[in-house]
C-alpha cells in the first residue's frame, strides 16, 4: 500500500481514536494518563457528530456524549467524526473541535494570552498550541500502541463493546491490560513485507502484534 492509500484508507483509525478517548473519558472520569507522565483531564462537551455511511447524528447540549442518544448512535454502528473536546493540563485549559478523519483542530480556545506585542503574542500562542499538540500526540501514541497490539481485539474491544451497551467495565482489569501494551516503536524492526495472512510477532515488552 503506498503512502496516499495509507493516508486515505486508514482515516477510520481517527474515528476509533475518538471513540477510545470517549470511552476512557467516561470510565476514568476524565483523568487520562500516558507514558512519561503526560496526564490530563479530557471531556467531550457541547457537540458531537456521529455518522454511518449517509446517516448522520449531530448532538448538541451540555454534555451530549454522555446522553443516551449518543450511546444509542454508537450501538447503531455510527462512529464519531467530530467532537468538541475540553483538555486541561495543569493550569492550562483548552477547548476545540476535533475532526477525526483529518486529525485537525478548529476553534481552539487556548489559555489567556497575556502579552501585548504581536511577536510575543505569537510565540505564546504557538507555545500553548504546541503544548496541547504534545499532549494530544501522547494520547494518540497510547491509542496507536494499543490499536496495533493483539490486546486490542482480544481484550480492549470486548470492554469497549460492554461500555457501548451500557454494561460495567472492570476498571482494574482495563488498567492492567493498558499497562501491558508495548509503547509505539517497541516492536522489533523487520524487513518483512506486510502479509494478508495473520502475522504475530513478539515485541520487546512481550506482547504480540497482529495483522
Amino acid at each position, binding site marked *: 500500500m503506498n503512502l496516499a492509500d*495509507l*493516508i486515505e484508507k*486508514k482515516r477510520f*483509525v*481517527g474515528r*476509533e*481514536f475518538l471513540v477510545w478517548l470517549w470511552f476512557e473519558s467516561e470510565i476514568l472520569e476524565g483523568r487520562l494518563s500516558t507514558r512519561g507522565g503526560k496526564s490530563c483531564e479530557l471531556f467531550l462537551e457541547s457537540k458531537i457528530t456521529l455518522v454511518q455511511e449517509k446517516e448522520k447524528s449531530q448532538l448538541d447540549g451540555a454534555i451530549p456524549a454522555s446522553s443516551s442518544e449518543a450511546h444509542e448512535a*454508537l450501538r*447503531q*454502528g455510527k*462512529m464519531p467524526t467530530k467532537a468538541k473536546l475540553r483538555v486541561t493540563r495543569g493550569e492550562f485549559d483548552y477547548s*476545540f473541535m476535533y*475532526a477525526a*478523519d*483529518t*486529525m*485537525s*483542530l*478548529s*476553534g*481552539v480556545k487556548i489559555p489567556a494570552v497575556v502579552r501585548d506585542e*504581536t511577536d510575543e*503574542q*505569537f*510565540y505564546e*500562542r*504557538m507555545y500553548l*498550541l*504546541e503544548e496541547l*499538540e504534545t499532549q494530544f*500526540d501522547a494520547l494518540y*501514541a497510547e491509542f*496507536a500502541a494499543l*490499536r*496495533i497490539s493483539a490486546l486490542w*481485539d482480544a481484550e480492549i*474491544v*470486548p*470492554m*469497549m*463493546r*460492554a461500555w*457501548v*451497551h451500557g*454494561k460495567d467495565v472492570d476498571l482494574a482489569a482495563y488498567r492492567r491490560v493498558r499497562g501491558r501494551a508495548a509503547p*509505539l*516503536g*517497541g*516492536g*522489533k*524492526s*523487520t*524487513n*518483512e513485507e*506486510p*502479509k494478508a495472512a495473520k*502475522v504475530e510477532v513478539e515485541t520487546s515488552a512481550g506482547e504480540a*502484534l*497482529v*495483522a
Partner: protein
Amino acid sequence: MGALKGSISFTKFHVRGELPEGFRDTFIERMRVRAFRPLSPLEEAPQGIGWCAIENLLDLEIDHGKVYFETYLNVGLRIDTWQIPASLFKAHFAEAEREHLAKKGREKLGRQEKEELKVVVTRKLRQQLMPVSKLIDLSWNLDTGAVRFWSQSARLHELLDEIFEDTFKLTLLPESPYTTAARLGLSELESNVFAELKPTAFHVAVF
C-alpha cells in the same frame, strides 16, 4: 483570524525533506519569485495565487523581518479570484449580443462569435469589479517541520501543496491517523501491521 491573533483553526502538515544550507536567504528569494501579483482584467487567468506578508494581503514585499519569527517562518498565502455574479454576466451578455446582432443585421450568433463576445463582456465587467481576495496564514516551525495552514478547505490544500513545493522544493505530508502514528515512531513492523488494520465494530453485542 490567523496565526498572530483571533480564532485558531488550522490544518497541520509536516515537511518532508531536509532544509537546504543557507535556507533563510534562499527561501526569501524564492518567496519573492512566487510573491502575489495583482490580477489584471486584461488577462484571461481567473485566479492569482502568491505569497504576501502574514496578515496583510496588501504587503507584497517579502523580507526577513516580516517572515522569520525566530524558528518560525510566517507568511500569508493570497488568492484572488474574479467572481462575476452570474445574473450580472447574463444581463450584460444579452445586451452585448443584441447590440452585436443589430450592428451586423443578423438574428443569431455563431458559436465562435459567442465565445469571443463572452471574453469581451468578461473583460469589460472585470474592469468594473474588484477580484475577491482571500488571505490564509501559514506558520512553519523550522525546527520541528510542522506547518500550520489556517484553512480546512481541501481545495485550498491542493493549491498550497503546489505553491509550497514550487517555492521551497520540499513536499508537505498531511496530518492523518497513519502519518501521525508514523511520526510518533511506528517501527517498520508496526507500520506493516497498521497497513493491515480493519475497522472495529464497537456496536456488536459480544462481550
